[in-house]
């Protein structure tokens, strides 16, 4: 009974989405307020019914309703309740439903937090969100219904959730990632609305900015969680594999980073409009492309869902329709006239332009690397995949260039920056970075050009960011007063850039100074890694809720003193019969110690991988810093003032009121 109800609410939300896609838009074009007034209630209604459907599916999982095919394929009665809950998005159908729930949630958020926008804009933006929702609701109802029943042959028990996914990381990773992916639909909807209106002005950029920033922040957290999960769950201590699906999440992140920066220029200076609107479209298009790559089975990946040609074709149709129609609209409507605003050849505009060029180049690079095998296959060259060396040798130089420019760009001014002044301004930060880098290199022992460049860039970004904070916070009333006077969006930027420096430092150090050894060990034996002694003291067995684990006990000592005791496991899951390696990790801010139990070789000996991973936590901490910076930026006063003065100003004077706010902040 309940599953049918779930399907029914999905159909209802499709109806509401169809109305949302049409009615407010017609109202906006014909100028009828009565039609535009439907936008918000329809958005709310769509969200309520999608949420109901999601709740119904969750219920089916929690009560072990194996008559529902999706539940039978992805759950089992032995599964602990929290994994039953996260199994809701453990397969294609359910994760698609989560995707749609997020989309409906973002649509609702736009409806709620858009009191200050002109009615016409709200109607158009919500209508575009409605169109996207129609596409995905049709997709789920036609090709991937999560409520399909297995009647009358109800299986006695479920096939269980893939053991790889039975983990805390899976509970949080997909929702964060989808929040980011889907969040870019808001910036996309704003771009489309602005193109329809022909009003690509500063107000459009200002409204798009917080939505882009918050979506980007979620995506940053999602990617970091995914990388962390891969590190401890896939078992061998890597943190980024340049897997097509990882790349699929990196693509919109890179485009979104470029979009955030170019929106800033468009808002402040009114230039780069066509470029910014194109980026907004491309960023969302890349989110859709990522969804397609994961679900259509065109690429091999550890993450890919079961492939199904119908789904792939439907999704590609959806993707093609969205992207081709929006890019065609762009081609006809984007402004081509030269703006009157002038800026010098050395100015913040130019620095941000270079930032965009580099970010977009790196995005294209990853895109080419990801799709090259497909293109080659299309040309008849057979299937192959591009490995890490390609990305490492091409991506790293761009990342370093971005960092070096960032440090200089922070000090630059809008319109025109004096070259000599900038050079003098950069002298001290450059000197400090070089000294710090030299010290760090000596401390780590061993010089390589790549490690030097990476550490120098990271230090340079951090030092320049802090130096700029120091400059800006000087005040007659003392340092504390000066620090407090800075806006939250400025602190957001500082945190974001410091986060980037941390991530770069972590990535460089762990790639260049990490040590790993594969050894054959029997209980009682000892292996050495630097000044650390790893003693394999015993093997044992323990029972989990739905698995049996063999574990090894490793005592790690330095100079006879115990540093950590780790229990890496090999788990055998009962239902799917998969063997999972559960690494033993001693995490620390400066280094991780990592032990993974491999295959059993010989009677009592095991293949063991021991690793020393310096600064690896910085990778993910840096991403969290970046995300937190984004959240801080949208908590800025100028966005709140607009909310507070909501009651006083008539609804469609947003442009005017926006300018007032601009003058205030």
């Amino acid at each position, binding site marked *: 009974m309940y599953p049918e109800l779930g399907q029914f609410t999905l159909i209802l939300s499709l109806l509401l989405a169809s109305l949302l896609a049409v009615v407010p838009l017609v109202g906006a074009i014909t100028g009828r307020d009565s039609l535009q007034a439907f936008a918000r209630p329809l958005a709310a209604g769509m969200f309520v019914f999608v949420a109901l459907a999601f709740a119904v599916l969750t219920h089916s999982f929690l009560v072990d309703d194996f008559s529902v095919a999706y539940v039978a394929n992805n759950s089992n009665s032995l599964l602990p309740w929290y994994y039953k809950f996260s199994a809701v998005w453990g397969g294609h159908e359910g994760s698609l439903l989560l995707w749609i729930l997020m989309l409906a949630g973002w649509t609702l958020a736009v409806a709620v937090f858009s009191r200050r926008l002109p009615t016409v804009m709200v109607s158009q933006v919500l209508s575009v969100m409605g169109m996207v929702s129609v596409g995905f609701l049709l997709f789920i109802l036609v090709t991937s219904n999560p409520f399909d029943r297995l009647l009358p*042959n109800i299986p006695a028990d479920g096939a269980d959730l893939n053991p790889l996914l039975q983990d805390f990381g899976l509970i949080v990773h997909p929702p964060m990632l989808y929040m980011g992916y889907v969040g870019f639909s808001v910036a996309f909807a704003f771009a489309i609305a602005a193109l329809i209106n022909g009003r690509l002005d500063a107000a459009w950029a200002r409204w798009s900015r917080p939505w882009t920033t918050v979506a980007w922040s979620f995506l940053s957290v999602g990617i970091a969680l995914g990388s962390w999960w891969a590190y401890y769950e896939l078992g061998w201590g890597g943190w980024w594999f340049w897997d097509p699906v990882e790349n699929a999440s990196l693509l919109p992140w890179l485009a979104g980073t470029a979009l955030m920066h170019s929106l800033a220029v468009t808002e402040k200076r009114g230039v780069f409009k066509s470029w910014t609107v194109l980026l907004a479209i491309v960023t969302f298009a890349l989110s859709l492309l990522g969804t397609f790559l994961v679900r259509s089975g065109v690429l091999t990946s550890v993450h890919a869902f079961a492939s199904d040609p119908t789904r792939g074709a439907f999704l590609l149709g959806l993707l093609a329709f969205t992207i081709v129609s929006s890019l065609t609209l762009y081609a006809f409507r984007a402004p081509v006239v030269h703006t009157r605003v002038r800026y010098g050849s050395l100015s913040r505009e130019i620095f941000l332009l270079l930032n965009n060029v580099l970010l977009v180049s790196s995005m294209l690079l990853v895109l080419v690397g990801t799709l090259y095998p497909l293109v080659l296959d299309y040309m008849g060259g057979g299937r192959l995949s591009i490995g890490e060396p390609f990305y490492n040798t091409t991506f790293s130089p761009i990342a370093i260039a971005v960092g070096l420019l960032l440090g200089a760009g922070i000090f630059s001014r809008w319109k025109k920056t004096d070259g000599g002044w900038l050079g003098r301004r950069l002298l001290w930060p450059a000197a400090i970075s070089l000294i710090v880098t030299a010290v760090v290199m000596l401390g780590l022992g061993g010089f390589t050009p790549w490690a030097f460049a990476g550490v120098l860039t990271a230090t340079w970004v951090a030092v320049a960011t802090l130096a700029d904070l120091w400059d800006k916070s000087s005040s007659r009333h003392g340092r504390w007063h000066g620090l407090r006077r800075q806006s939250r969006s400025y602190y957001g930027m500082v945190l974001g850039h410091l986060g980037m420096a941390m991530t770069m430092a972590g990535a460089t150090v762990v790639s260049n100074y990490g040590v790993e050894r594969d050894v054959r060990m029997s209980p009682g034996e000892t292996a050495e890694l630097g000044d650390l002694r790893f003693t394999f003291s015993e093997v044992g067995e323990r029972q989990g809720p739905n698995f049996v684990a063999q574990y090894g006990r490793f005592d790690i000592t330095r100079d006879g003193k115990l540093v950590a005791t780790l229990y890496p496991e090999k788990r055998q899951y009962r*239902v799917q019969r998969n063997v999972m390696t559960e690494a033993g990790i001693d995490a620390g801010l400066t280094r991780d110690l990592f032990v993974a139990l491999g295959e059993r070789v010989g009677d009592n000996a095991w293949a063991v991988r021991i690793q020393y991973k310096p600064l690896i936590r910085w990778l993910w901490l840096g991403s969290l810093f970046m995300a937190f910076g984004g959240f801080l930026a949208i908590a800025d006063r100028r966005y709140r003032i607009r909310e507070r003065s909501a009651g006083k100003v008539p609804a469609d004077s947003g442009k005017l009121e926006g300018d007032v706010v601009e003058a205030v902040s």
Partner: protein
Amino acid sequence: MRRVLLFIPVALAVALGIVLFAGIGKDPNRLESALIGKPVPAFELADLQNPDAVHHDNVFKGQVSLLNVWGTWCPACRDEHGDLVRLANVEGVRIIGLNYKDNRDAALQWLDRLGNPYALSLFDPQGKLGFDLGVYGAPETYVIDAEGIVRYRHVGVVNERVWLDVLQPLLQQYGGQG
């Protein structure tokens, strides 16, 4: 003229779309399309009941059979076991069992308790033949004709419906019996 440049993104998107469309349906992982119409991969596996006896791929010659991949660790296999016993005893289908990544004692106990539908049981603890066949997981059932050619692969449980709709017609087509 400048507006023409704005059409570049849409042109690129269309080109990419064509390539992606060509990629759909060509599953990079799947082996089954490659195996269908081809002989069963060569193998040499011990008999489940009699560890000293060894079977080769010629066990499929001469008569159309089903090859059923199963294991005691697989709940869905227990689910379909009753149907398999019925197929073997009532319909007279020749079923060859492939005991996949399993434990010999547990497997023998299972057959003792639930009945043995298999004309012959292959014991594949390391999943060698399973790997060559491209087995995703148990249960899977293959239709193999009298020449030892793989004709069909069924993933999942064999039940009354699957038998009537899919397997019986195939057995009749390839073996003239069923």
